[in-house]
Structures are given as structure tokens and as C-alpha cells.
């Protein structure tokens, strides 16, 4: 029987990602594995992954300005267009992949039964959206800029304005959840979750940039955020003979 020849994904650069144990982010202390991860060469279990199509989502799922709002009403907050592309490490577009986002409202409050922050809920804002990238890997959401919010870590810790982002790619090995921040926010540098990332250059990769050219005059400010998923080796020769 013929089987797909695994063409491996580049190893994840673990020094670019936050370590599991990052004591200034207190919850990580008891939730971090302490034994080394076991490195696994890719098999079909890693180079495959779930696929999604237009049947899985609805038109308008990527419009957080309207996907929870009452007819004729709008959420409160700074209207933004969030857009970018999903690429792999080889700078190739990742088409038809599911991108999901979630965020607090303009007051820094989440529509979640476990969030008890004093910031007001917005009756016209749910706080989640999803879309598929197009054939060039591009995606776009309309939303509002989330507010900063306090959290129990240090006594006076505040999360910078951020949007949570989930991306699939085409392989289980590419699965990624991250958070994007907004250019110019003074809370970024003070955030213990941001600072789990050791390399300042890696932090820069999480900062969405003001995109004045895509900004819609008299309507909404655009921010651009490109996402890079793991790239894949194009194997010309098998490095091991069958049976080894």
C-alpha cells in the first residue's frame, strides 16, 4: 500500500517561544511540565490535520461589529479593521485555513461567565469571530479595539489591549494559539505574559501595526498582523533507507 511520504516540518525553535515554566506568570508554575519534551519525527499523525471549508462557518462570522449586535446597533469602542496574511516559514501563503479570534470589549470585559471584572458588558458585542484565509493566505476581521484589563498575578498587573488568535495551518504540527498586541501600547513592556517570551525580537512579531493605507477614511482604523506557521522541508532524498 502506498502511504504519504512524510515531508517533515521544520523543528519548532523553542527558544523563540516562551518556556513552559515562566515564574513571573504565576499560573505557569504549577502547569508547566518539568521533564523534557520527547522529540518526535513527523509521521502521518503530525503532518495531517483537520481541514475546514465554507460549510463550517457563516458569512459575517468575521464581523465582530455585527455578529452579536442587535439590528441597527453597534458595539461601543474604536472601530478597527484587523487584517493580514497567514504565511509559513518559507514565506508561502497558507490558504483556506481557519483563523479564530476572541477578545474583551472596549471596557476590558469578556463575555464569559467566569469574568467578573467591573468593566461593563456591551450588549452589542460578543467578542469572537472566525474566517478562512483566501488563496493568498489573507484574512480580515472587523471589530473594536479591546480595552486593557487587570488580572490576578502581581497585585497591579494589567493586560495590554490584545486579541487572542487561533490558527490551524494544514498539519496538526502547525497548530498555534497566540495573542496580538497594538503598536504603541505602554502596557506591552510591563506584561508578565508578554514577557514569558525571552527574545524581544519575538515580542515584536506579536505587535499589530497601524496600517494607514488600509484605514477606511471616516470609518475605521486598520491594523495589520501577519501570522507565520511552521514551514516544511521539501525532501528531495530520503535521509534513511527503508527499514532502518
Amino acid at each position, binding site marked *: 500500500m502506498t502511504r504519504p511520504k512524510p515531508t517533515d516540518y521544520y523543528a519548532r525553535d523553542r527558544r523563540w517561544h516562551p518556556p513552559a515554566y515562566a515564574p513571573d506568570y504565576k499560573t505557569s508554575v504549577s502547569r508547566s511540565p518539568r521533564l523534557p519534551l520527547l522529540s518526535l519525527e513527523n509521521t502521518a499523525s503530525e503532518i495531517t490535520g483537520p481541514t475546514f471549508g465554507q460549510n463550517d462557518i457563516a458569512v459575517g462570522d468575521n464581523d465582530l461589529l455585527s455578529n452579536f449586535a442587535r439590528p441597527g446597533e453597534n458595539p461601543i469602542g474604536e472601530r478597527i479593521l484587523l487584517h493580514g496574511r497567514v504565511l509559513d516559514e518559507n514565506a508561502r501563503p497558507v490558504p483556506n485555513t481557519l483563523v479564530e479570534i*476572541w477578545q474583551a470589549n472596549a471596557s476590558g470585559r469578556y463575555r464569559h461567565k467566569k469574568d467578573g471584572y467591573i468593566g461593563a458588558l456591551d450588549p452589542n458585542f460578543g467578542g469572537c469571530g472566525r474566517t478562512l484565509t483566501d488563496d493568498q493566505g489573507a484574512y480580515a476581521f472587523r471589530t473594536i479595539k479591546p480595552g486593557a484589563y487587570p488580572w490576578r498575578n502581581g497585585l497591579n498587573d494589567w493586560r495590554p489591549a490584545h486579541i487572542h488568535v487561533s490558527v490551524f495551518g494544514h498539519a496538526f504540527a502547525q497548530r*498555534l494559539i*497566540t495573542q496580538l498586541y497594538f503598536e504603541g501600547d505602554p502596557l506591552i513592556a510591563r506584561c508578565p505574559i508578554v514577557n514569558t517570551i525571552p527574545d524581544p525580537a519575538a515580542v515584536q512579531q506579536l505587535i499589530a501595526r497601524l496600517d494607514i493605507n488600509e484605514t477606511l477614511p471616516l470609518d475605521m482604523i486598520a491594523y495589520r498582523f501577519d501570522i507565520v506557521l511552521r514551514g516544511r522541508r521539501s525532501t528531495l532524498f530520503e535521509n534513511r533507507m527503508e527499514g532502518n
Partner: protein
Amino acid sequence: MTLPYRPHFLQQSLTPLKETPSQTAGPYVHIGLAPGDAGFQIYDTELGQDIAGPNAAGDRIRVEGRVFDGTGAPVRDVLIEVWQANAAGLYPHPETPGTGDGGPESTENGFRGWGRVISNFESGSWSFDTIKPGGVAGRNGRSMAPHINLWIVARGINVGLNTRLYFADEPDANASDPVLNLIEQTDRRATLLAQPVSGTGSAQNPRVYQFDIHLQGPGETVFFDI
């Protein structure tokens, strides 16, 4: 951040782009990935509810478990994604031979192979229903024992954790599984074995397996860098 798109023919650099760094999914991951569990209705369909639809072949099973932190407390805000092959050991993916052209190796309609699992906010318990996967072709012609791939995210987990669930009632396949055999400390292999719950698995009801995950401490589950 904005990255230049480099067309193929200009790509002479040996320095590839860097993968976007991971950040924790946080305590409110449900808003984005399972809003019904966050407490509101927004989408027509929530994704990941049906791993193996009624049309999927194979033995019906249920997996139940909890995730524990290093103090032994259950993690009550965890989200787990499941990715598994069908009963014939094939993944529903374009790279599976035959997929898309109706060939004999494509997976059956209604088999998604992927699901999302949320823990109960009070007890930390979670469960999912699926079919038992078949063995999957591994590297270099070696076959892998039936297994389910899991990806675990939560507040306090900075990079999603990959592990595999194997079945304790497959001793022969497990003994020759190339991944289980990579685990040098042989007693740690048991952390990846789901145990059948005795007395389950009648014609009407699925067989139940118990699978607890320990993030840290005694019995720390084996996690993979895949």
C-alpha cells in the same frame, strides 16, 4: 507585524521567517473556540462537536478524564483538541492517498477525526465520544499502534502541549509502537495508556476509557515536541 511577501524566484535567503511565538490561550479560550460554554450563543454551528459522525465505521468509545496540575488539583479551564485516524488508520486529509478522488483509501463521509473538548468548570472532568482508531502507518514502514493525538491549552500553558493517547487493551500493538518505544523511562509509557473501564462496552453503549493527564509532578505525562 508586517512581513514582506517574497516570491519564490527572489527567495535566495537561507534565513526563513520565524514562526509566530505562542502565547497562552488564557482563561477565556471558550469565548473564541466554544462560545456556548462561555455562556452565549453566537454561531450557527460550533466546531469540533462531532469527531466521528453516525456514518463513521468502527467501535464506539468514550474517553473520560481530567487534567491535573503539579499540586494535584484538576485543571478546570482546559481545552483539548483531538486528532485521530479512522478505524482503517487513515486521516481525513488531502495527503492521505485516494482522498478527493474517491479512491479506496479516502475516509468515509461523516468522519471528521477532529474535535474540541472542554472541561467542566467545577470538577475539571471532560469526556468525548468517538470511534476507536486503527493502527497508522509510521516512518520507515513501521506501523504505529492505535492512538489519538491530543493538544492541550489553558491559562498557564504557554505553548500548547502535544501528547498521545494509546489503548491499554492493545498490548501487542503497543509493545511494537515506535513512539512508545522512544520513551526511555519505560514506566513513563503507562502515562499514555487509556485504561478500559470494566463493565462498559455493551451493544448499546460505547466502551469507556479513562485517561488522566498530569502536567507536572509524580506521573507527569509524556509530552512531545512534534
